[in-house]
């Protein structure tokens, strides 16, 4: 009893040390836990897998680099998947870190032979938030007369025949924020929308999936790991799942210790009802 009570009073700094260890060890020596694919991911994968060579898709980057660890593995997996299918990708940025993120993510594909302006383009960031999104969705070449590198978009091969968002075969956005912006501005164009979200914002997006305003959802590192499994190409997301499992287990254990300690103290009259510790 005394040990459990003490476990509920451990200095949080020990908790930090333990957290570092439980995250680091599985990364150095992976456990290889099985990953089950959720219905969300398999539905989104099926939609993206149905694209044909020559189809054109929008990737809208709506996250800052601090949200990247949870959402970027989704973008990495989708770049791999769609480029391998010969799908063309038009990258735009809802947030100002986007152009640099696109540059980083497309670099290995450029080295592998993908041609800028033909297979993909980085249009860059437009200030103005939701209004800017509405503007380029209605007339892409007017809002983006040049791409991020200053090339004229009207003569760019990848944008021939594309004037509005309705001309794309699919719209994928990645965000560390709410999905509402894209639902409000893009769903009216009747183009299938897939959202790549960080784990904490995904529950807010579920109503849009049920109302079919979103065609698919990919959620956080877990969603990326499931996608990698469906592609049969394990990557960084799959490697991170063991670490996430161990961190979750450790947190659950400490929450249980904390509660056991709280109830022991309460039974002895040492903790008041409603006390935080």
């Amino acid at each position, binding site marked *: 009893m005394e040990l459990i009570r003490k476990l509920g009073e*451990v200095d949080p700094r020990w908790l930090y040390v333990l957290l570092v260890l439980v995250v680091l060890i599985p990364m150095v020596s992976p456990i290889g836990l099985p990953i089950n694919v959720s219905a969300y991911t398999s539905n989104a994968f099926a939609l993206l897998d149905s694209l044909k060579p020559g189809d054109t898709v929008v990737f809208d980057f709506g996250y800052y680099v601090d*949200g990247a*660890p949870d959402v970027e593995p989704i973008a990495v997996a989708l770049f791999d998947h769609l480029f391998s299918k010969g799908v063309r990708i038009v990258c735009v940025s809802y947030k100002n870190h986007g152009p640099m993120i696109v540059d980083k993510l497309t670099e290995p594909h450029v080295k592998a032979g993908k041609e800028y302006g033909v297979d993909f383009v980085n249009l860059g960031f437009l200030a103005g938030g939701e209004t800017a999104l509405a*503007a380029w969705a209605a007339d892409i070449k007017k809002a983006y007369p040049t791409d991020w590198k200053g090339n004229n978009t009207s003569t760019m091969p990848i944008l021939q025949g594309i004037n509005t968002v309705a001309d794309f075969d699919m719209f994928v956005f990645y965000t560390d924020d709410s999905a509402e912006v894209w639902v409000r501005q893009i769903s009216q164009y009747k183009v299938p929308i897939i959202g790549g979200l960080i784990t904490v914002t995904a529950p807010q997006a*579920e109503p849009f999936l049920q109302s079919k305003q979103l065609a698919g959802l990919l959620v956080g590192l877990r969603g990326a790991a499931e996608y990698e499994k469906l592609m049969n190409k394990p990557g960084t997301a799959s490697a991170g799942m063991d670490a996430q*499992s161990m961190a979750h287990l450790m947190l659950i254990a400490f929450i249980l210790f904390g*509660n056991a300690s709280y109830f022991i103290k309460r039974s002895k009259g040492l903790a008041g009802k409603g006390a935080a510790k």
Partner: protein
Amino acid sequence: MKREVPIVLAGIVGLIQILEHFFDFEAIAAVTVELQNWVIIVSAFSLALAAINLAINHTQKISAKKAGAFDSALLLITMVFTAVAGIFWGMESSGFKFVFNAIIDPAASAFYAMAAFHVASAAYRAFRAHNAHAAALLITGVMLMIAKAPIGEAWFPWMPTITNWIMSVLNLAGVRGIMISSAIGMICVSARILLGIDRSHLGLGRD
């Protein structure tokens, strides 16, 4: 005049946006796209204005030798370096890429990762079953943590069925309720602004 013109302008522009959304008039659609492109230009200028304002504030802080002057100097140096690298060397230059890939990216990721420690500490210290509500929150949270991690699924294969039900029924009902009520609130606020009843966005206060 100073009060009326912005209110009338806001009302007309708002009305055009609403008409374009609900009706298929080519002329209105063209005006809407034009207005939206104006917003992009104005927003770009406001970013530049914000940068100038930031520079003035921090320069004043340094010259007055206020607390945090060193941080202000650091901010100004990095801001000028990034701007020079982007404007003069180009956004594909190694200097600009260095700022993003070697400073902004790892620093921001480190800050985000630090949140894990705060969450761990807060969960351990404050996530207590004080009463029935707190216990329900605690049990649901722990179940979701188990279901979202592969190890939890491996040990409790039935857990995802329960958590999926929680997410797609209980969570959905709650989120939908919040969304509908906030949307109705948004419509009311928009109507007040467009009709000139609420003037707080112009710095004129509410009537």
